[in-house]
Every structure is written in C-alpha cells, then in structure tokens.
C-alpha cells in the first residue's frame, strides 16, 4: 500500500501545481489594470493557440505548413461576413467560420497529400497566397480595405466589450480548451499514428495506418483551430483586412512552437509566453528608432534555438537537472517502477 500512497501524493502535488498556475492566470486581470499589459496576454493566448494548431500538423505529423495565417484569416472572414451580411450571432458565426475553414482545407489538401516534405510546404504557401489574392480581388470580401464588425454596447451575446478583461478570460479558456484537445489527440491512437507518419510514412502505411486519412484529419482539425483563432481575433480587434494573411504572419505563428519545442504539446504555450512579451516590449520601446527590431530578435532567437537547442526550450528543460530537482523534491515523483506497479494494480482490479 506504500507505493499506492506515494503515487497518490505525487498526483495530489501535481494537481496543486497545475491549480496554482491556473489560479495565477485567473487572478492576473484583478491585479493588472493596464490595458496595454492585458493586450499582451490576449496576444499570447491567441498566438499560442494558433501555434498549437500549426504544431498538430507540423510538429506532430511532420507536414510543415507555412499557410496558417491564411486559415486564420479565412475563419475571420467567414465569421465577419456572416455577421455583417446577415446579422447572425457572432458565436454561431464563429462555429460557421470553423466549419468553412475545415471544409476548404480538407477539399483543397485532399489531392495535395501525394506531396511530401518540402513540396507540401510549397503548396501550403501557394494556397495561402491564393486565398489572399482572391480576397483582395473580390468585392464580396471587401477587397483590400477589409471588413469591420459592428460596434455597440457591451454584451456577451454579441461578444463585444470595451474592456479587455472578458477577452482575456475567453482567450485563456480557448487556449486551455485547445490544449486539452491537443493533449487528448497526442495520447490517442490518432496521435501515435500521426507521429509514426512523421517518422516514416511508408513504414506507417506498411503497418496498416492509412496516411492520407490521418493527414486529412490532422489538416482539418488544425485548420479548424486556426479558424477559431480567426474568430477570436476578429471579435477582439473588430476589423480584419487581407494583411492578416501575409506570409510573414504565417511564419510568426510557427515561431512559438519551434522556440518552445515542437515535439511537445506544451511547446507553443511556453514559446508564446516567452517570445511574445519580449517582442512586444521591443516593439513598444525601440520600434520608433529601429523599426523591425522585434522581428530581428525573433529571428535571432529562432536561429539560436535551432542551432544550439534543436528540441526547443521545453526539450532542453525535459532533460535538465532542474526538472529532475522539481520532480524529486517539490512534486515528490516516485520512481518509474512504482508508478507502473500502481498502474498495473488498477488494471488487475478491473479484471477481477
């Protein structure tokens, strides 16, 4: 019974740690009143979510897309146009936007799955640029001048507020929700199938995984999450234009995942929490004298991480002594053997 108790204590400590982190994030808007700082947090939430969407396709499946800004923009456009043209409820329009993006991505990429490695990246760029060109050239999408959402009094029904606090909480919930979905996928049969495809597609096909089917699922889910971010962005900024979908934005959406560690579901969140406040600080303080300094810092961070810590910040932490110390002393993690023993007990009880 001793090992069972140790595992119980470990799980309790883990729950307390996660609870404390959540509590801190929940309490930040009470302590921080500056709209500027809150804006940075909202930015972290939606950029990390977009990066998680990329990570499902890039980090987990090995299909490096460079067109996620286009999916996000498409979701934002679908939702904004539905609201502006028919007066629909924005929440429903958000769901509509996600469905549209998922459908478009699924249909367009179905013939493209024959492409591997760099060719997939090229098509994702060409596809993203094509969407942007269609929007710029079409009067229905408002051409280059963009679309604005109607303003009005604060309301949850119409998802519009003058204060940034509600957006903070919705953004936080969105990030946590998407994280839980990604974690679930990561541990499911689908997650293992995707990782097998990443390592060797032919071998995956040989052991009975249908690569096309799983890649389509990954693309559709990834694009739908990007569409969700688009809906959140449109509701927050209340104005969208085709500049949202330029190539540089797609690249920007990948950086948190690479810097944080693309092999981990948590990577994009860690990367976003570190990189985005830094970038915003540089933008606010130096962009008047040195324009482009924040993106320059992004580029340097990216190169340094890839050159010296190819597994990202989280990959570095996972193999570091700090983690060993935290596990042993603070969380009181029992040895792996004990954990497995207790897990097996659970199974035996189930059999009996």
């Amino acid at each position, binding site marked *: 019974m001793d090992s069972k108790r140790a595992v119980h204590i470990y799980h309790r400590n883990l729950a307390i740690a996660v609870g404390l982190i959540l509590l801190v994030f929940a309490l930040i808007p009470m302590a921080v009143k500056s709209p500027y700082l809150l804006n940075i947090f909202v930015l972290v939430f939606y950029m990390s979510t977009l990066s998680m969407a990329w990570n499902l396709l890039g980090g987990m499946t090995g299909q490096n897309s460079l067109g996620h800004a286009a999916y996000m923009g498409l979701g934002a456009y679908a939702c904004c146009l539905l609201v502006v043209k028919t007066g629909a409820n924005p929440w429903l329009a958000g769901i509509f936007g996600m469905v549209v993006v998922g459908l478009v991505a699924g249909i367009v990429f179905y013939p493209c799955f024959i492409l591997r490695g760099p060719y997939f990246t090229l098509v994702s760029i*060409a596809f993203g640029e*094509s969407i942007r060109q269609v929007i710029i*050239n079409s009067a229905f999408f408002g051409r280059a001048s963009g679309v604005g959402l109607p303003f009005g009094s604060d309301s949850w029904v119409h998802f519009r507020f003058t204060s940034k606090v509600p957006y903070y909480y919705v953004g936080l919930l969105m990030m946590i929700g998407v994280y839980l979905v990604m974690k679930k996928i990561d541990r499911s049969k689908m997650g293992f199938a995707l990782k097998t495809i990443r390592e060797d597609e032919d071998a995956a096909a040989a052991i009975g995984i249908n690569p096309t089917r799983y890649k389509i699922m990954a693309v559709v889910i990834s694009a739908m999450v990007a569409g969700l971010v688009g809906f959140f962005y449109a509701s927050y900024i209340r104005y969208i234009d085709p500049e949202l979908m330029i190539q540089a934005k797609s690249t920007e959406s990948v950086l948190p995942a690479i810097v944080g560690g693309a092999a981990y579901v948590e990577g994009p969140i860690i990367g976003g929490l570190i990189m985005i406040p830094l970038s915003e600080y540089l933008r606010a303080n130096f962009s008047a004298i040195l324009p*482009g300094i924040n*993106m320059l810092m*992004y*580029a340097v961070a990216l190169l340094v991480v*890839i050159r010296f810590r190819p597994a990202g910040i989280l990959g570095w932490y996972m193999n570091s002594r700090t983690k060993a110390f935290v596990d042993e002393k603070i969380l009181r993690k029992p040895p792996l053997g004990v954990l497995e023993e207790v897990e097996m007990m659970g199974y035996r009880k189930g059999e009996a």
Partner: protein
Amino acid sequence: MSMFLQACVNGLLMGGFYSLMGMGQNIIFGVMKIVNFCHGEMLMVGMYLTFILYTYLGIDPYLAVPIVAVTMFCLGSVIQHTLITPSLGTKSFTNLLFLTVGLGLLLSNGALVIFGSEYRSIRTAYSQTYIQLGPVTMALPRLISFGVLIVVTIALFAFLKYTTIGKQIRAVSQNPVGAEVVGIDVKKIYILTYGLGIALAGTAGALLTQFYTIFPTAGASFGFRALIVVVVGGLGSIPGAFMAGIFLGLLETMSALFISPSYSDLIVFMTFIVILVVRQTMIARRK
C-alpha cells in the same frame, strides 16, 4: 499586336531573373535536399550591396556584379559552414526549414533596422535610355541585364558539366553516400554549393537594381518564384530552370494582358499548385 509583342519581350526580360534565381535554388535543393527559404532575401542583400557600392564608391552597377557575386559567395559559405551543416546532422526537416526561414527574417529585418523602410533606387546616366526595335521598346539596362543573365547561365551550365568541381557537385546531388565513398569531400561540396546558389541570387539582385526599387522586402516575390522555377523546371536541370523562368515571366505578363493585372499573382500560384500536384502524382504512379 504591338502590345502583345511588347508583353512578350517584357515577360522574357523578367523571366530571365526568375531563371537565375531558380538556378541558384535548384542547385541548393538538388544537392542538399533543403529548400532555401531565404533565397529572395539574398537577392535583396545583393541589391543593397550594389546600392552601397554605387552610392559610396561610385562603382557602376554592372561593374559591381563580380564584386557582389564574390561577396555573396563568401556570405553563403560562412552561413553553410556555421549554421546549416551542423543542423544537417540532426535530420530534423522542420528545423532545417525554419533555419532558412529564420535567416530570411534576420536578413530582411536586419536591412529594415540598418537602412529603414525607404524605397531606394539607382539611376545611372544610361538608366533612361530606350531602344526602339520595330514596335517594341526596351530599356537599355534591362537588355544589358538579360545579356549578362544569358552569359551567367551558359557559364554555370559549362561549369557543372565539364569542371571537376561541377562533376563532384552533380555526384553529391545524385548520391551523397556514394560520393563520399569515392573520396569526394561532401561537406566542402555543400559549402561550395550553397555559396554558389547565394552568389547567383546576389547576381540577380545586382542586375535588378537599375529598374527595380530597393527595399527590405524586395526579394519576397522573387524568392517564391525561384521555388516555382525549381518545381516546374525539374530538379537538377539548368536548361529546365532557364525555360521555366522564361515561362513564368511570360505567364505573368500574358495573364496581366489578357485577364487582368490584379489576377496575375493568383494565376501564377494556381498554375504552380496544379503543375506540382500533377507532376508528383505522375512520379508516384511511375513508382
């Protein structure tokens, strides 16, 4: 009719640049199997180098071409040696891809920090000279640039075909392990290849300066078009890259003439997707 001929000539002259960019990308992609996503930014660096040489040292843009090419070759070699070769060992395609993306970000934002976002241009004594050839008008710098492009293409073709180093580059692109077995220093070839590819991009940049504005993101559209040239022209083929570049230039001007200038980008991207998918499907079927 005269408009059609004029569009043909313009497409041809622009296509030459896409060919040159595509050839650089082609040898890098062919030898190392990595896509160089900072190829367009290298063109931009070549433009700024020419600009500096012209403005501060008074060197004519065409005389600056060899200087720019050599400088860019050195830059490319250093990047390959310090950044790309060490990362080739990790076998992580994602990391390699974002290494060149990061380099592109570094260069374009570095240029933004150093030179600001102003549009700059080089105007020499003969910039505004035009040549009338039947119904077609051509700017003299464009014509000279095209001539230089042709010379560079033939020189590159001969270099890869007949010199020892050229043969070694082709050997590595076909089979790196086999090349290493017969005693070729593969790492040296990687350095040479990347330097050569970057030098070609820089040359294209130097040749562009007289009729194109110079700004930090000037290379972006050329960078992606270089990739289109590689895919359409076929991997490892210099004549193929040349033809594909000309085709791309003509496609752009023709769609601008017959459909609408604002749709020409869309048509280029759509054609690219269709060609890529059809081609890869055919290759997969053949296997």
